[in-house]
């Protein structure tokens, strides 16, 4: 069964500092990969996704993620964090074979705190 690991439950960074959130997946083939963010009182919002092609993908709000097949990783990065980035971040996958396999498998999430 596929699984997603987000090793960091909680990360605290200072505003303006760089950020990297880790995500590793376990799956027999290359899945489709997603990062979602949930701000307080809001729904899960899609930040970015990777299906194929260029392994560095750009998302909204200045985020990017890099797919590394050899490490089964899809880490999320931002060069300079803003206070409004404080939220919970979720990595998710679906099987990459296409077709009607839409069930997202999520990691446990990483809570980001931003200090002024």
């Amino acid at each position, binding site marked *: 069964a596929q699984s997603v690991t987000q090793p960091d439950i909680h990360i605290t960074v200072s505003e303006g500092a760089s950020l990297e959130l880790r995500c590793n997946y376990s799956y027999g083939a290359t899945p489709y990969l997603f990062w979602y963010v949930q701000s307080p009182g809001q*729904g899960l919002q*899609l930040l970015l996704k990777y299906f194929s092609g260029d392994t560095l993908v750009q998302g909204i709000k200045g985020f990017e993620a890099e797919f590394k097949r050899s490490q089964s990783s899809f880490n999320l990065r931002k060069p300079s964090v803003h206070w409004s980035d404080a939220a919970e971040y979720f990595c998710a996958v*679906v099987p990459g074979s296409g077709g*009607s396999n839409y069930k997202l498998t*999520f990691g*446990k999430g990483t809570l980001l705190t931003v200090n002024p």
Partner: protein
Amino acid sequence: EAGVTQFPSHSVIEKGQTVTLRCDPISGHDNLYWYRRVMGKEIKFLLHFVKESKQDESGMPNNRFLAERTGGTYSTLKVQPAELEDSGVYFCASSYGTGLSTDTQYFGPGTRLTVL
């Protein structure tokens, strides 16, 4: 355009009582999904509707859970009778496509259910 909405935002009930959660998807989205996050665990898939039909309910935990989507618009998820382990956050999502793994799922803010 209105996003996915869920009602109520928070529900506190006694063990053995019944609770009904509602989800209104984005207008025009034929696909509707329910997910659940139990405290400390991952967000997990419960079921998928295409219009009014249940496409996949493989994630439903047991027969105390009943989901409906009359007329292919909003959906309800009823828990009857509720047990302590049903506590968690219930997310609804919708997507426009044909239920493929490449369709973006748009999530609501969730309903936090507390069973005492």
